[in-house]
C-alpha cells in the first residue's frame, strides 16, 4: 500500500497579526508527496484512496477539549488524548493514536478585543471564519495536513498556527460544527449536546460559585445575557444532528434543583448511514422499564428507563431515556445486558469503559452511559466506513 507521509510546513514562527481584519491570516493547505504514485500500474492503491479520515462533529457549549465526552470518546478508540507535545501550551487540540480533536474556537476571526469592538459574542457567526473552517476540515478529510490557527482562551488572542496532520478520526468540537452547510456535508456523524437551562444553571453554580468574583446573581446574569445569541445561532443546529443527547432535571425527585440526579435522553435519528440506534427489548416498540426490583436492589432514587419511537424536527427518531443513578457495578452490568445494538465487541464493554473512567463526571448516570454508547457507535461507524473503502479502491474519495 502506498504511504503518504511527508508533511512540510512553512515556519511556525512567522508573525501573525492578531486583530481587527478577519482575513489577515492566511493558512496554507499543504499537499502530500503522493502525486507521483498516481502513475503507477493499475491495481495498486493510489494515495487518494487512503483518505479514510472520518469526521465527527460535536456541538457543545461547554468549551473544548475539556469536555468529558471527548475524553470518553478517545478512550473508546484506545489511548489517552493529550495536547500536542512541545507546542503551544495553550493549544486546544487533543491528539491520541487514532483521533485528533479540534476546537472550533480556533476559527474565531475576531479575538476578544475584536469582538468587544464589534459588539459580538463568541456565539455569533460573525466572530468565526467559516470559509477557513471549511477549507481546513475538507483538507484534513482528504488526507492533507493543515496549519490551523490557535485561539488562546487565556489571553483572548489568536496565536501562531500549529500543524495538524490528518488523523484516522477527526473530531471537530465547539459551538458551530453544524452551522455552515458546507462543513455539515463533510461530517460523517454529528452529535448535539443539549443541556437544559436548569441543569446548565446548576452546573455553572458548581463550577463558579467558589470563585471570588462570582455570585448567584452574576452566574444567572451570565447565562441570561448569552441566551439570545445561543437560541439564535447555536440551538437551531440540533435539527441537523444525527444524535442529540438531552440532559434534563430528574423526574424521580420532586422539585429537585441540585442537578445531581439527571434525566438523560439519547435521541437517535433513523436512517443514518452506518448508524443503528440502540434499543431496549424490541426495536420500534415503546417500553418503560424499571430495572430495580427482585433481581436488583437499587438505592434512592433508583433508575428508570424509557424507549420508544418519536419525531424530532420532522425526522423519525428513536429515543432511549435514563433517569436516575447507578450506585453499584452490578446495576450497570444488569442494564447493559438488557440493551441491544450497542456495537460492543464483547459483553460488558460498556461497563468496562464506564469503570475505566469512574472518576469522570456523569459516570453514575445517563450522561456517562450515553456518551460511552455514542463512542462505541462512532467506532462502529468508523470500522464500517473503512471496510467499505478498502473493498472498493477505485471510486473512493468524493473529491
Amino acid at each position: 500500500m502506498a504511504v503518504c507521509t511527508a508533511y512540510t510546513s512553512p515556519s511556525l514562527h512567522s508573525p501573525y497579526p492578531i486583530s481587527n481584519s478577519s482575513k489577515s491570516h492566511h493558512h496554507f493547505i499543504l499537499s502530500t508527496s503522493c502525486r507521483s504514485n498516481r502513475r503507477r500500474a493499475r491495481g495498486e492503491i493510489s494515495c487518494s484512496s487512503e483518505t479514510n479520515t472520518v469526521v465527527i462533529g460535536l456541538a457543545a457549549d461547554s468549551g473544548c477539549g475539556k469536555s468529558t465526552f471527548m475524553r470518553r470518546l478517545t478512550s473508546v478508540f484506545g489511548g489517552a488524548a493529550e495536547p500536542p507535545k512541545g507546542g503551544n501550551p495553550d493549544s486546544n487540540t487533543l491528539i491520541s493514536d487514532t483521533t485528533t480533536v479540534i476546537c472550533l474556537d480556533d476559527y474565531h476571526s475576531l479575538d476578544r478585543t475584536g469582538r468587544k469592538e464589534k459588539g459580538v459574542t463568541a456565539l455569533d457567526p460573525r466572530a468565526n471564519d467559516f470559509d477557513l473552517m471549511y477549507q481546513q476540515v475538507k483538507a484534513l478529510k482528504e488526507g492533507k495536513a493543515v496549519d490551523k490557527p490557535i485561539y488562546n482562551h487565556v489571553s483572548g488572542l489568536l496565536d501562531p498556527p500549529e500543524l495538524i496532520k490528518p488523523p484516522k478520526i477527526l473530531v471537530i468540537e465547539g459551538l458551530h460544527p453544524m452551522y455552515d452547510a458546507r462543513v455539515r456535508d463533510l461530517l460523517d456523524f454529528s452529535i448535539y449536546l443539549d443541556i437544559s437551562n436548569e441543569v446548565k444553571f446548576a452546573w455553572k453554580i458548581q463550577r463558579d460559585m467558589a470563585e471570588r468574583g462570582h455570585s448567584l446573581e452574576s452566574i444567572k446574569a451570565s447565562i441570561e445575557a448569552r441566551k439570545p445569541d445561543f437560541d439564535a445561532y447555536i440551538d437551531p443546529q440540533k435539527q441537523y444532528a444525527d444524535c442529540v443527547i438531552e440532559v434534563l432535571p430528574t423526574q424521580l425527585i420532586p422539585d429537585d434543583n441540585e442537578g445531581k440526579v439527571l434525566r438523560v435522553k439519547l435521541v437517535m435519528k433513523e436512517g443514518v448511514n452506518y448508524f443503528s440506534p440502540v434499543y431496549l427489548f424490541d426495536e420500534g416498540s415503546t417500553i418503560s422499564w424499571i430495572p430495580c426490583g427482585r433481581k436488583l436492589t437499587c438505592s434512592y432514587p433508583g433508575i428508570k428507563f424509557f424507549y420508544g419511537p418519536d419525531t424530532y424536527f420532522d425526522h423519525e427518531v428513536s429515543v432511549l431515556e435514563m433517569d436516575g443513578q447507578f450506585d453499584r457495578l452490578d446495576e450497570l452490568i444488569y442494564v447493559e445486558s438488557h440493551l441491544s445494538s450497542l456495537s460492543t465487541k464483547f459483553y460488558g464493554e460498556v461497563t468496562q469503559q464506564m469503570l475505566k473512567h469512574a472518576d469522570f463526571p456523569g459516570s453514575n448516570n445517563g450522561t456517562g452511559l450515553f456518551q460511552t454508547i455514542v463512542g462505541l457507535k462512532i467506532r462502529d461507524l468508523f470500522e464500517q466506513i473503512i471496510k467499505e473503502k478498502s473493498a472498493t479502491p477505485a471510486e473512493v474519495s468524493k473529491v
Partner: protein
Amino acid sequence: MRELNLSKMIEKKVAEAMEVCNGEEGMRSDGCRVAWDEVEEVSSALADLRRRLADSAVDPLEPFCLQNPEAEECRIYEY
C-alpha cells in the same frame, strides 16, 4: 500563577459586566452581552486550567525544561 491571574481577571470582568449592564438600556445593549460572554470565557478557562493541573501528575515545568535546559528556571546547580 496563571490560576491567580485568571481568578483576578474573573473578578474584574464580572465588575465590568455589572457596570455595563446597569439600567434598562444597559441591559439590552450589545456591550452587556459581550461583557458576560467574556466572563463565561474566562470562567471556563480557569475551570479548565484547574482541571488540567489536578489531572496531571507531571510537574508542568518538566516538558518545558526538556526543551530549554538553559532557561533560568531549569538550571541545575550541582557541586
